[in-house]
């Protein structure tokens, strides 16, 4: 019996010791085996990737970078941002030194302090005043700059050119008729439904994506989702007539106009897929999605993109993007390496021959893979930079879709009448989940009590999330 007891005591003390050993964290070395300063870079393609073009490109960039900067080294890391693994990676300090994520995650990165402030590094590299101020606000935390934006997008309407033609919604010059407001979207949708039998318009409803895409519609109706006082206490403010009107609009699309899909539980993948295979006339989406539709074999001449319509109160769209963050605990030198590397791969504001080659092969690769080339995106920069001009030139060379099909979207990018708004500042995912629920309810229940739903959602969101901010 005694041995058993001793063993138990030993085991349980081992349990406790290692339990608390887990709390301490070591410092990662910034020198590799050759004694060079190095950074690891995430999103690296795996050695067995089918996208060999990209692997070749990035390997070339690494070789060039290391010969141009003999004291520095780049270490590939195939990790991609994924919430399933992010926190464990972060807690065990296994994040790549430079890792990519959507803007959406910046809040989590800031609250966990999983970043190294790059404001001094940016100053050293001459980036002061270069970022678009609207973007700069999103990537800052007080005086600190959290992350380096590489791409930004804004939402517009993607439409199926084929269905538009059949519904008589194309102009003779190859541009589509642009719905001016959401009611016209409903009208257009009805025409598509009548002439082709396909859904006119759709909105996803699952995995927080319904809420995400519904927010710009709600904003255009004048909805304000939350307000902060001077102590940063947030109050939910969407229990309003505007919100009821916006939701009534969605409900009418389903029950009065009958232009939605039969399935009311669809996630983003299904949403894109149904659009790509020609089952939906119009979807609300970011411009860069058009290049992904090739995976469902959407014919290039069916892809079109136009501006987001106006709502009763505002003409507004949602903006977001992709960004590169330097993990916490990086040295100044590592920040310099990372910024230099971002410039090397064409994300900075430096146009060298190597970057030119990268941009050229990038577009060529996209065109070779039959990805749609021709839709433009928002710039992260304050003014038109050399690199943006060059990018535009090359893009025009490799265009493979009818530019008239996407003209209205490309023009809308510089239309200052359309307001740009980022995601809600706090608890955005939680808000989307709440909105997903309402949207599912009104799409599956013809007699849903919208007023009651909104009232309950507003109260729940306040009690469950906004009251628990910390």
């Amino acid at each position: 019996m005694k041995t058993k007891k001793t063993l138990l005591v030993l085991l349980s003390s081992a349990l406790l010791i290692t339990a608390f050993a887990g709390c301490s964290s070591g410092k990662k070395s910034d020198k590799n085996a050759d004694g060079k300063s190095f950074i690891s870079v995430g999103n690296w393609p795996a050695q067995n990737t089918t996208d060999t073009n990209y692997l070749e490109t990035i390997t070339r960039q690494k070789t060039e970078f290391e010969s141009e900067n003999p004291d520095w080294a780049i270490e590939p890391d195939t990790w991609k941002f994924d919430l399933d693994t992010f926190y464990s990676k972060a807690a065990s300090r296994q994040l790549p030194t430079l890792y990519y994520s959507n803007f959406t995650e910046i809040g989590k990165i800031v609250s966990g302090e999983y970043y190294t402030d790059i404001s001094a590094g940016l100053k050293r590299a001459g980036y002061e005043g270069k970022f678009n101020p609207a973007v700069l606000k999103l990537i800052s935390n007080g005086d600190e700059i959290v992350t380096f934006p590489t791409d930004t997008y804004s939402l517009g309407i993607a439409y199926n050119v084929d269905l538009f033609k059949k519904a008589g919604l194309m102009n003779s010059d190859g541009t589509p008729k642009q719905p001016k407001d959401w009611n016209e979207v409903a009208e257009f949708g009805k025409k598509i439904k009548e002439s082709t039998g396909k859904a006119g318009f759709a909105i996803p409803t699952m995995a927080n994506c319904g809420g995400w895409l519904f927010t710009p519609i709600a904003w255009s109706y004048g909805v304000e989702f939350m307000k902060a006082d001077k102590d940063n206490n947030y109050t939910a403010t969407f229990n309003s007539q505007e919100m009821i009107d916006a939701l009534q609009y969605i409900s009418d699309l389903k029950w009065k106009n009958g232009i939605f899909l039969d399935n009311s539980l669809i996630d983003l993948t299904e949403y894109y897929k149904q659009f790509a295979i020609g089952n939906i006339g119009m979807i609300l989406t970011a411009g860069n999605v058009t290049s992904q539709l090739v995976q469902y074999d959407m014919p290039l001449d069916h892809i079109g993109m136009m501006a987001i319509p106006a709502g009763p109160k505002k003409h507004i769209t949602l903006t977001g993007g992709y960004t590169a963050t330097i993990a916490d605990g990086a040295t100044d030198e590592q920040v310099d390496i990372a910024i230099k590397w971002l410039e090397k791969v064409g994300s900075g504001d430096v146009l060298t021959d190597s970057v030119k080659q990268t941009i050229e092969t990038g577009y060529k690769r996209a065109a070779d893979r039959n990805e749609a080339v021709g839709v433009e995106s928002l710039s992260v920069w304050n003014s038109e930079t050399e690199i943006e001009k060059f990018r535009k030139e090359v893009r025009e060379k490799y265009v493979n879709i009818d530019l008239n099909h996407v003209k209205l979207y490309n023009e809308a990018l510089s239309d200052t009448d359309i307001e740009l708004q980022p995601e809600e500042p706090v608890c955005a995912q939680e808000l989307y989940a709440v909105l997903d629920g309402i949207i599912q309810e009104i799409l599956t229940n013809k007699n849903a009590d919208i007023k009651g739903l909104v009232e309950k959602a507003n109260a729940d969101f306040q009690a469950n999330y906004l009251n628990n901010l910390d």
Partner: protein
Amino acid sequence: MNKKDKKRNKPRRFRETLSVWLLLLPAVIVLYLMIWRPSVMGIVWSFFKMNGYTPTKFVGFQNYIRVVTNTEFWPVMFNTLKYVFWSFVVGFVPPVIIAFMLNEMMHARRTLRVIIYLPAILPGITILLLWYFIYAPDSTGMLNMLLAKLGMDPYIWLNDARFTILFIIIQMTWAGFPGTMFLYYTTIQGISSDLYEAATIDGAGPIRRFWNVALPQISGLLLLNVVRQMIGVFQVMQEPMVLTGGGPNGASNSVGYQLYQYGFVQGRVGQALALGTIVFVILIIATLFYFKLNKKVEDNL
């Protein structure tokens, strides 16, 4: 053996059992790293304010209060019980019946055994995608195609909030019954054929044979499976995640999926740990009950 002998035997017995302990060591290490340590840490950390996976401050029951006062908590608990309820209504009896039928088969038993086991060898995600198409609420859904053949309108299946959980349970039953069925099947196979023959000579038909011969022999197993199924279904997560996202409007949200949302979507690790601990406590009570029952059943065999 007297007391003196016992004492003298002790060191020798430890030496004798040393090899056993050494053999156990790898399993103990794995269990320690993968099960015991995370479980204990999870419970400890559920009392901390978590920054990602790093505990920062002891906050007492704050995480628990937030979990329980969340307006979704009781609806989600109730949903989970609904899952358990429907799983008994729909899923408990078929494995028993099928196992017995398989045993009664005279021809093609071997082939049938393989065919019936088929769902168990399919990967979980394949099954879910399969059922996604079976339940598709438009004209492309398999069930709706059948309805169309019968001249009926398409039905919205998983979109009907009243029955979403029932439909998910039907899917889970289909995917899960072969394993349970084989437990019953092997037990029934183990029943002495004398009993069957005697019953048959006495004029008992299949139903009588099932009721009076097979059922008494598997009653212990039935009892155990009640608890096993309860524990299993209580943790339901990937089915609502893939098929409905917990919808429509939370109608199929489960405790497991809520936990996943806390931990991996909203980044509320402290709350995820607190809810995990609550589920752990509920299930450990059920498990203790299971062990007690198991002992009783084994003693009776």
